[in-house]
């Protein structure tokens, strides 16, 4: 039996964290919650669940939280790991779909995409669709890898991938950084159609269009320096 770790970075998602994790408890995965220095008390929500709980003493950003999760999974001898959002917008049924190419086709990285299936495309709000199309082009130019969905937080990695990938961008630029490193380490990858359900909560917590601009500026700075 292979060891699958679900890495859930979490920043002040007290309202929904339990709801996100509970269905995972019935599945044969190890759940790792990385509390990224939340000022809300996340621990008290999940104290009784069979999970791993790690807490950054200060807020570092989602990229840093994912890297901490990957380091921890490496240390725990995980075979595969999955990046999963705390706000519940990713579907638990998609996890096996993501793991299949890792197991059967020896892919190093599997990336979730909401733009491979007509039905899941229709669920993406209009302004997000435009924003993500722009992000796709920018990502393509910066990384040389053209994906259908540039900023999907749903990813699955095998041990080869997560022992090589090293995220140094603590903030949201990590989404592009991961793709850059796929290219750099010559990892094999595949996109898999996944569903994203936009709840009122995830819309609120999600990134604003303004944030996209600041990510873009960060990217340029990183490329230049």
């Amino acid at each position, binding site marked *: 039996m292979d060891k699958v770790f679900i890495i859930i970075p979490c920043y002040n998602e007290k309202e929904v964290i339990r709801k996100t994790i509970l269905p995972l408890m019935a599945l044969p995965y190890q759940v790792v919650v*990385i509390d990224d220095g939340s000022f809300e008390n996340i*621990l008290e929500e*999940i*104290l*009784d*669940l*069979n*999970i*791993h*709980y*790690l*807490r*950054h*003493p*200060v807020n*570092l950003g989602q990229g*840093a939280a994912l*890297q*901490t999760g990957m*380091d*921890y999974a490496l*240390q725990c001898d995980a075979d595969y790991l999955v990046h999963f959002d705390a706000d519940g917008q990713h579907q638990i049924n998609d996890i096996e779909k993501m793991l299949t190419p890792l197991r059967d086709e020896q892919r190093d990285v599997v990336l979730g995409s909401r733009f491979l299936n007509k039905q899941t495309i229709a669920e993406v709000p209009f302004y997000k669709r435009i924003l993500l199309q722009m992000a796709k082009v920018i990502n393509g130019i910066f990384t040389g890898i053209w994906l259908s969905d540039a900023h999907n937080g749903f990813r699955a990695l095998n041990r080869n991938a997560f022992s090589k990938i090293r995220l*140094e961008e*603590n903030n949201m630029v990590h989404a592009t950084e991961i793709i850059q490193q796929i290219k750099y380490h010559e990892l094999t990858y595949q996109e898999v159609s996944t569903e994203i359900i936009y709840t009122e909560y995830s819309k609120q917590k999600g990134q604003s269009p303004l944030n996209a601009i600041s990510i873009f500026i960060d990217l340029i*700075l990183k490329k230049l*320096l």
Partner: protein
Amino acid sequence: MSIIQLILTVSILLLLWLYIRHFKSQLISKILFSILFVAGIVAVIFPEVTNVIANYVGVGRGADLLLYITVIVFYTSLTFIYSRFKKIENRQTEIIRLLTINSAKKLPQKLTDKI
């Protein structure tokens, strides 16, 4: 000597003093910075000198040449500071990460356990 020349000269001398006093840098960079500061004072007291240099490189006025140099120096320093800042941030992240992994908890914990 006009008032502005006096103000600038005193400011430059003060900066030089601060630099030598407080920065524990190497002797060579101390010497280089001293030369730079002295050049600054010369430019303040004899502005015609900058005009001569400016004309030589193809700029109309000495003040314009100084502005161009200032812009370049400013952005170069900004880049250095940014990369230094990034390095410190990365180091800090590694320390926090180590702390975090070392104090990872396996839940569920008994209520009697101290959290």
